[in-house]
């Protein structure tokens, strides 16, 4: 590791003494290379990077800069002095600043003369730097006037510049961390960004965090795979040829069986079609999505993050609109952009596992359950809520889902993550929509609660409700789904049976 520019050895980090966010990680970046760091959500990528820029201190581990041992930085400024800077996934761009203002943001002190900013000097230096780094833009336009990929490039230029300004010597090769830089970009902008990045490699080294496999394989020199806080694989693309599927398996696969679910239900699908999607397209997100959803069937849309799977399910829920194609539910053609409440009236329910997204946390359980089931608890003659019926409904759901709570009047704030999730599912159990969309239904909850939720969902399936599942956890697909559509780059690649699916992901 002599030629390494920056190396970490044996870094570990725990949160609250329990969760192992990072476990004995060692990796390095050499001069002028792009090092990919891939893994699923929660694999520890972000934690590692935050340690490198001084947001968190590590529990254990060593940092080497140009072969010399140095202490870990304590804040971003100190990290910049060591040559490390980060470009955040989103929210980093300040749209109403001009490019040169943005480049020097936070470093103005070096350009102040009699408390006036030397704008001419700043503009000239900005133009020089943009030219040196091959960023094709004018230093005097507003950030929001630039295309998204150029905005990203300016952000990267800003990171390099901050290293130069802080470390004071131009000789240091900056190490720039790119946290999922291609998130908001479409295909074309992605290509643009990467061709620019390859140019920029001459001036800097990059840690490239991503979970989009094709781009990692194509543009990085080496890749480290993180899973559950551990370094599980290292690939060097200059030495060996790696297939996308190998990489994919390394990212999602789990060696040990954490749990084997008791509930496995399959083959209940009848022939009645509940939902048909035909050539559904939204440019930059997904293309030509065609499938049928039968009554009592669960279809999984599987693929790595960034493949367009979440966008597809959100389109069906009414959160996004589609551009081409058609969507038919129960023989009724849907408009391209309808709000979720319209879709719900037509029988499509949307359940997201993201905590607090659809729950009203300051409400008691019973109100949360009854909110989408208003029709059932209104009086016969007047649209008045019948508190008794409301409480009974909630009690039934609480019992059915084994929600651990002193009473149905407990505020959802005080429930544990798993129980919150159960309340969320509970209201859909009661509502019984024709189609239930599951967007990561069990993210971040414990095994027991998961099993309970799977059980309930399978009960719902038996009663004829069909579902579409999107998840980060491949196990979930094999438990719930009758068919799994494998999506990559926004297109359906193949349709797998659960058995085939298990073989592909190796579980």
């Amino acid at each position: 590791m002599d030629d390494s520019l920056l190396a970490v050895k044996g870094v570990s980090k725990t949160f609250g003494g329990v969760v192992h966010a990072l476990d004995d990680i060692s990796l390095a970046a050499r001069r002028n290379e792009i090092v990919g760091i891939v893994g699923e959500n929660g694999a520890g990528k972000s934690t590692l990077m935050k340690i490198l820029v001084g947001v968190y201190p590590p529990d254990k581990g060593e940092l080497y800069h140009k072969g010399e041992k140095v202490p870990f930085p304590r804040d971003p400024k100190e990290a910049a002095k060591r040559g490390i800077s980060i470009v955040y996934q989103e929210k980093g761009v300040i749209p109403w600043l001009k490019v040169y203002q943005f480049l020097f943001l936070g470093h103005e002190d070096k350009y102040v003369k009699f408390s006036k900013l030397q704008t001419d000097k700043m503009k000239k230096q900005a133009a020089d730097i943009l030219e040196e780094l091959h960023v094709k833009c004018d230093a005097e336009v507003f950030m929001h006037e630039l295309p998204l990929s150029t905005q990203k490039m300016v952000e990267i230029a800003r990171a390099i510049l901050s290293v130069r300004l802080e470390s004071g010597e131009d000789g240091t090769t900056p190490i720039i961390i790119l946290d999922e830089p291609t998130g908001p970009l479409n295909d074309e902008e992605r290509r643009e960004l990467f061709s620019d990045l390859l140019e920029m490699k001459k001036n800097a080294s990059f840690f490239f965090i991503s979970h989009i496999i094709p781009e990692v394989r194509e543009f990085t020199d080496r890749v480290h795979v993180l899973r559950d806080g551990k370094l599980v694989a290292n690939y060097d693309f200059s030495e060996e040829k790696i297939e996308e599927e190998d990489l994919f398996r390394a990212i999602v696969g789990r060696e040990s069986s954490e749990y084997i679910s008791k509930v496995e239900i399959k083959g209940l699908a009848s022939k009645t079609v509940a939902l048909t999607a035909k050539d559904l397209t939204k440019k930059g997100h997904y293309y030509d999505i065609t499938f049928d959803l039968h009554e009592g069937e669960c279809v999984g849309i599987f693929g790595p993050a960034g493949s367009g799977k979440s966008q597809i399910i959100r389109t069906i829920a009414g959160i996004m609109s589609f551009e081409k194609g058609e969507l038919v539910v129960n023989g009724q053609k849907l408009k391209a952009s309808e709000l979720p409440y319209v879709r719900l009236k037509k029988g499509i329910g949307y359940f997201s596992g993201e905590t607090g997204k659809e729950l009203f946390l300051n409400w008691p359980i019973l109100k949360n359950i009854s909110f989408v089931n208003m029709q059932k608890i209104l009086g016969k003659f007047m649209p008045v809520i019948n508190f008794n019926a409301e409480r009974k409904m909630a009690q039934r759901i609480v019992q059915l889902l084994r929600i651990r709570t002193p009473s149905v009047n407990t505020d959802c704030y005080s429930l544990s993550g798993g129980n919150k999730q159960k309340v969320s599912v509970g209201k859909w159990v009661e509502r019984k929509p024709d189609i239930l969309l599951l967007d990561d239904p069990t993210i971040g909850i414990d095994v027991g609660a998961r099993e309970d939720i799977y059980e309930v969902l399978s009960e719902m399936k038996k009663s004829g409700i069909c579902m579409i599942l999107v998840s980060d956890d491949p196990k979930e697909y094999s438990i719930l789904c009758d068919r799994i559509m494998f999506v990559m780059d926004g297109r359906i690649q193949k349709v797998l049976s659960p058995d085939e699916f298990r073989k592909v992901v190796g579980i």
Partner: protein
Amino acid sequence: MKRSTGNRLIPAVIVRTLKEQPVIIALIAVFVLFSILFPDRFLSFLNFKTILRQFITLTLFAIGPSIVVVTGSLDLSYVGIWMLGGILVWLCMPVFGLLSIFVILLLGVTTGFVIGVIQTKAKIPSFILTLSLLVTYWGLTALLSGGYPRPVRGYGFITTRLIPYIPTTLLWSIPIIAAAIFIMKCTKIGTYLYAIGSNEEGAQLAGINVDKYKILAFTLSGLFTGIGSMILFQHLGGSTPVELNLNTVVWPLVAIVLGGTPLMGGSGGPQRTILGAFTFCVFYRGVYISPLHPYSVQLLVGLLLIVSIIVSARGLKSVTIT
């Protein structure tokens, strides 16, 4: 660097300026319209003098709050500072003599600072906070004055004519306006305030102490309102009213929004507010001398506010549910 102005009829600089500041078109339109409609009364020396006088008043009130609006908050306390300050001057007169005018300045800065601290720490919407404070100051004014305006003599020198035909208050306000524009356009502080208004989270990520600069924005607003009120105190007759007039509160807001500073912050600023204030005054005088009923003027002002808000809010994203 591409500059293709070549065979255009209108130079690109002008096109760009007009695109960025559509209020100029409105100003020209309003001016031409009233000049054609009422050539005698509108194009008179007296009318211009009145417009100028009103313009000064409006600008001095609006310049401070426009700094706060750039950061995406709202400061309505200006009229309160002016009213309470006037009474405090009267109270301090026997003790400090002519120096007591600086009490307004002190009040302005303190008020701005306090608002900033409460707003950043307690996270109350700034409009409610400053509105409540405005009413509190109004009550305090009425209380301290005993219910009557209290004229103070001795500050006539502020408005003594130095150059013929040009009101001295205008001369006073030029450096103030220049200072505000300088701070917002040419210093680090200004850049940070624009950054905060444009993307608060991004500014935080860039290592800016957002709370500190927000407090600074309110303090600056208080400072400029304080200085402005010192001049306005004499400009508007050497005393301040004890009754709150909604118009004095709303007109500077109209000037800010009309000038093109969106209420969500991030762009605009004092230099635009001046244009907005001028346009507003021309418009107001035009309507005022028209045969329209004087009471319908207010109606038109309200419509103007609504229209300019909608125009400045245009292009905002609707409530996103993702």
